[in-house]
């Protein structure tokens, strides 16, 4: 079975250390998403798994087999590239059948498998076209088709949807999700779109500067971010961060406050604090609600944006920091209005100040 294990994986280009010791365990059949800001090493890591990039040190096993030094072809993986990378001089049919042709498959086998892939991806009518006669979304289907005909145990996707427009991206995202269920293969998917990460993943790996920040299910990361980076990276709009001071610690809870925030008792989770520490209180915009004055937080409305389903309100707090709240659609405030917010203390996150 195609379980993938990365142990202390490292990659350097000369003196530039791009991947700095990564440990990830991906179960068979799992949909694993690598997310992180641009340049954090997502593609490099994926290409190391594919065999397109040498591994400087560490070990990589696919299906219980150490593959560090195997060429891409022998790793049993298929890859879909951001630029699609379909061969411009071949028809769609030839493109999809490429891996089979290389493997020396018979005509009948090729025809059957290409037909099956075309059916799954609904592109039967495109088979005799050339890539230059296809739209971006259709090209991406061809690239996926080429990956699935060989029935590999592992699929690697490097930002496959980033060249598509928003509507098409949503369609294709759902199709990739369905494909994963239908094929049951292990998939690794690189993106910097957190919606793709949240919706597709069984497991998300958040990367920054070539290091793993946190690994977990989408909801674990959303509800229980291990650090400020993960907290700020997942969720839209981003989590609000308030600088607070710890007033008192009581077991697993701490009493915190600042100039704009009345003292509130929040869970410290695993971090340890002591009275007088500076800390960061994280509040997701969605968990803020309008309070009858006085409320826990007071401020002045600086900007409102009505998105239809909800209204985003940017508020300037008394200590001059600002905060964004996601409120129901019928809530409207003029700029300059005084508002007060409440939040459930168990939805707040306390982080050590950096």
């Amino acid at each position: 079975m195609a379980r993938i294990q990365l142990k202390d994986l490292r990659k350097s280009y000369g003196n530039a250390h791009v991947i700095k010791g990564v440990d990830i365990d991906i179960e068979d059949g799992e949909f694993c998403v690598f997310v992180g800001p641009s340049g954090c090493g997502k593609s490099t890591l994926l290409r190391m798994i594919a065999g397109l990039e040498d591994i400087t040190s560490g070990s990589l096993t696919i299906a219980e087999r150490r593959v560090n030094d195997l060429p891409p072809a022998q790793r049993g993986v298929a890859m879909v590239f951001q630029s699609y990378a379909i061969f411009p001089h071949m028809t769609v049919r030839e493109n999809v059948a490429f891996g089979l042709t290389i493997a020396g498959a018979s005509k009948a086998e090729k025809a059957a498998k290409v037909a099956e892939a075309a059916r799954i991806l609904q592109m039967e009518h495109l088979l005799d076209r050339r890539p230059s006669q296809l739209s971006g979304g259709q090209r991406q289907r061809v690239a996926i088709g080429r990956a699935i005909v060989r029935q590999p145990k592992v699929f690697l996707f490097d930002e496959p949807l980033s060249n598509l427009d928003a509507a098409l991206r949503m369609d294709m995202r759902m199709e990739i999700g369905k494909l994963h269920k239908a094929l049951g293969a292990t998939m690794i998917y690189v993106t910097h779109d957190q919606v793709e990460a949240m919706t597709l993943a069984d497991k998300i790996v958040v990367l920054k500067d070539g290091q793993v920040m946190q690994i977990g299910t989408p909801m674990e990361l959303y509800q229980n971010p291990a650090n400020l980076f993960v907290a700020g990276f997942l969720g839209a709009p981003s989590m609000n961060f308030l600088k607070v001071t710890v007033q008192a610690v009581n077991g697993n809870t701490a009493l915190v406050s600042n100039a704009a925030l009345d003292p509130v008792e929040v869970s410290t989770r695993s971090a340890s604090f002591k009275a007088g520490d500076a800390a960061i209180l994280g509040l997701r915009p969605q968990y803020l609600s309008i309070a009858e004055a006085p409320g826990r937080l007071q401020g002045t409305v600086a900007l409102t944006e009505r998105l239809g389903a909800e209204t985003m309100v940017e508020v300037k707090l008394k200590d001059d920091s600002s905060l964004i709240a996601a409120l129901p659609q019928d809530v409207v405030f003029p700029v300059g209005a005084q508002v007060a917010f409440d939040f459930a203390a168990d939805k707040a996150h306390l982080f050590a100040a950096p």
Partner: protein
Amino acid sequence: MISADTQGLRLATRYAVLVLIALIFVFPLVFMVMSSLKPDQQLLQDSGSLRAFLPVGDISLDNYAAAFQRAPVWTFVFNSVLITGVTVVLSLVVCSAAGFAFVFVRWKGRETLLAILLATLILPFETIAIPLLLMAANLPWLGLDGISWGWMNSYRIQIVPFIADGLTVFLFVQYFKDLPGELIEAARVEGASWAQIYRKVVMPLSGPILATAAILKFLVMYNQYLWPLMVTQEEGYRPVMVGLQYFFQLNVAWGEVMAYLSLITVPVLAFYLYLQKSFIASIASTGVKG
């Protein structure tokens, strides 16, 4: 805004300029062919006037007959076409494979080797002609009747030294660098070997550069003079440019020279027309942009 009139005028000017340029290139050819049909005396008289470009006066194929008398024209043309053709084909294969290895395959020392190869671009052939000659004179060859020594007076001596050259490799290297690397990576992940990637992915996308390299090589090879002069003493292996000497002995017969030149120009034109067709076809079929 540009009115239809000025636009028409621009178009007319553009065509006029193009026609003029075309004429500048065509006139020498016309002059050559027309002169080949005239006796020497008339040829020299006409050459000062527009008559030089017209088939007027005493027109005949006598010069051609005389040219065939004077030199084994077909042997020279055959030799040149053979040597040029074989060299062009082998050169495209060898140099494109070398370019492929330099660009796509990672191996120790490739940067250094490429640098050395490119450095050879600045060496004029004349500087290596003599050492090459000394080497060639002593090379072994396994022929039908066993091992023999020395490559002088053969086709191979005119072909082998010109198969691989820095310029052609450099052309391929530059072209391959611009091919999308992900295409090659995709082929690798799909299980293709380097040889398969070369044959099935890179070569089919290389039409334009193959045509360019072929034209450049063709010109160099068809115009070879110094080297074949050095290495062939037997008429049977000599190419067209060496054959031209036959017409400059004692008294120069200009009409025959022109007849000979007209004859040896035919393969060049044929090659150009052929390449032009396949060149355009290759661009149309790849249509990489989308």
